């Protein structure tokens, strides 16, 4: 390789780094401008909406799609918000809970998916769902840095914050998915008549007992995030925390639920496990699939939960 070729090669590398860095910042700040105005959609809208109202809300729900589809916040409060998001775990939820104003009086319901706590492969990567706020929100940035779940390149290429979300953000900027001013975050699942046959078929084959073992251990990372919520509860005396597992259609594996209940007792956290609440009911109209209830099921469960909550207060 002679010096001319070396020069050419270095020129390509230097120019690429320079141009890509410049373009990255241009695109990143443009996307920031757009995304700040987006209040709808799962890409960023729901998170923006939550961050804008989190400290002015009486009742908050955190969790994954099951929380999102199972807890009708309106039944609990006129001023509630369901921050359940598809596919997220305890890392995501713990980080968001830690952004709440400590002194504010609130009822906070944290939906627990017991299976996730006993998943040996859980690595907290769901926290990446908050990457759109990396270097834009101090607490989230700190949590992301601590998690070590972000790519090294993220420090150089900020656009990676919008990985997988850019199109959704742009779409929701030009055409919002719904009217966010009337949206409370709860997304019930309806079952159309054409979906009923398939739903019944899927339910008949449902067995959530596949990997059941008595030897299951709590994932240490998940436990750390749970402990982080526990610490937050101690510094937030005005808040009431409720940890709940909502029903499943047919969960024959009870050992993890028992272990988790014992863990929560040790931590001194209020935990209600309703995994098998409707197990013997066998009413398919309550279900969309084996892990998600239909609107009918979700509303019945929310009413039941409210009754239990009120009873516990008395």
């Amino acid at each position, binding site marked *: 390789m002679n010096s001319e070729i070396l020069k050419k090669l270095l020129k390509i590398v230097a120019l690429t780094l320079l141009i890509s860095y410049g*373009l990255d910042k241009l*695109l990143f700040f443009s996307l920031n401008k757009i995304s700040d105005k987006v209040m709808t959609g799962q890409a960023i809208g729901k998170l923006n909406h939550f961050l804008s109202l989190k400290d002015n809300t009486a009742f908050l729900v955190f969790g994954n799609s099951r929380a999102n589809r199972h807890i009708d916040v309106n039944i609990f409060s006129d001023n509630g918000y369901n921050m359940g998001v598809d596919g997220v775990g305890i890392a995501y939820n713990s980080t968001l809970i830690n952004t709440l104003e400590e002194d504010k009086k609130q009822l906070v319901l944290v939906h627990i998916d017991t299976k996730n706590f006993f998943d040996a492969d859980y690595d907290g990567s769901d926290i990446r769902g908050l990457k759109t706020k990396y270097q834009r929100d101090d607490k989230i940035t700190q949590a992301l840095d601590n998690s070590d779940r972000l790519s090294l390149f993220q420090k150089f290429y900020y656009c990676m914050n919008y990985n997988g979300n*850019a199109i959704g953000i742009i779409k929701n900027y030009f055409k919002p998915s719904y009217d966010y001013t009337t949206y409370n975050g709860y997304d019930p699942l309806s079952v159309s008549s054409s979906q009923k046959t398939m739903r019944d078929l899927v339910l008949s084959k449902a067995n959530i007992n596949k990997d059941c073992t008595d030897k299951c251990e709590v994932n240490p990372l998940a436990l750390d995030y749970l402990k982080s919520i526990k610490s937050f509860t101690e510094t937030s005396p005005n808040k009431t925390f409720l940890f709940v597992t909502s029903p499943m259609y047919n969960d024959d594996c009870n050992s993890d639920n028992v272990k988790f209940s014992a863990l929560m007792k040790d931590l001194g956290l209020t935990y209600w496990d309703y995994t098998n609440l409707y197990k013997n009911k066998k009413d398919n109209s309550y279900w969309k699939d084996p892990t998600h209830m239909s609107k009918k099921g979700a509303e019945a469960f929310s009413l039941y939960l409210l009754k239990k909550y009120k009873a516990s207060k008395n």
Partner: protein
Amino acid sequence: MLFNSLEYLIFLPIVFIIYWLLKNSYKKQNILLLISSYVFYGWWDYRFLSLIIFSSFLDYYVGQKIEEATGEKNKKRWLLVSLCSNLGLLGVFKYYNFFADSFASSMSTFGWEVNDLTLNIILPVGISFYTFQTLSYSIDIYRNQIKASRDIVGFFTFVSLFPQLVAGPIERASNLIPQIENKRNLNVTLIKTGVFQIFIGLFRKVAIADNLGIYVDSVYGNYDIHNSSTLLIATVFYAFQIYFDFSGYSDIAIGSAKLFGFNFNRNFNFPYFSKTLTEFWRRWHMSLSFWLRDYLYISLGGNRKGIVITYRNLLLTMLIGGLWHGSSWNFVIWGGIHGLFLSLEKYTFSALKIKTFNAFGYIYTFIVVLISWIFFRAPDLQSASTIITEIFSFNYGSLFIGNINSFINALLLLSIGFLIDLKIFRSDIPLEDYGVRYSTVRLSVIVSVIILMLCLFYSTAENFIYFQF
């Protein structure tokens, strides 16, 4: 080590710099390449390095013996040693469980129960690729088409050269060994075309294929609950996923090799722009299809022994080609469909005295390829037949979208990939040479834009699809 990993991003420049610091001695460069290639492979599982070393040593030795042997019989005897050893290794590691399982199943249909004969065998990555490469070396020497290598480091480097070690292109000794055994030079053309191809390959794999894969996996993972339209869309997506995944891999391999002064053979040439299946196979995984043609189809007699034997040879070649991909009946059927339609095409061309189809040929070819991909992607024969039955039941209700963001991303990236392919295809300049058109500044801008696209759309997949073969 994966091409789309941080490890490779560090590994490639380090090897590149040391390699060109050793520019005065191509032999030292070969030693470096050999060590680097073993590190590259050992990163995945160092235990299987012994297989590559064994295979390399065997063919190095046998190659010389074939050349030195006097008389056809002796030459053939040494060739058989190479064939039996290489295919034996492949047979044990790749096909033993398949044949043991098939034997037990067929016995049980006659009422004879056979104990489980399968073994817990790990398939070494790249074994199908480097076995075919070493086989072609021995066969070429036997056919007096090349001379046996006397440079052991050079030969071992030929077998294990890291850009093509785990998933091809299956390089011919006649192309690669002379390059290894001579001084390589780097020029501006190689840099430009290499860099361009590496980044196009990354975009194809990391952005397009992996995003398509999210949708395909979600549908094929629960194929029994989806209707015709969803299964059809997922199959079309899979057709492009496997194309962009494998051609992307090949692009990174060919581009990386250029940075070390090597010219690999082309592996893909826009296969979906084919009017016939015959043309498809001249454009798809070219290093394998030409290998099968030269070492199997022609060895069986090709088209020299009458029309019936020609059809038999075509069918047999494609069946074996299917089996090469994996030890499953799905792959055999996939190869069988291609063999059958290739034979039908040959018959049609000779009966109608035409050389190709009109524009409808594009649609015909794509449909045949699409149907065959179902067997390639489905986990087993039963599910493949369920999917085909559902697609042809014309139950075209509403399409399952799943996560709308993922679906739109996949569709957008597929469109971009298709337009890029169309532009390069219409330019009549091979992708391998395309980068030379650009000035340094324009090339840097293009690479920068690709980097940003990767930042916005990268999706993490476990592996390249062809690693399993």
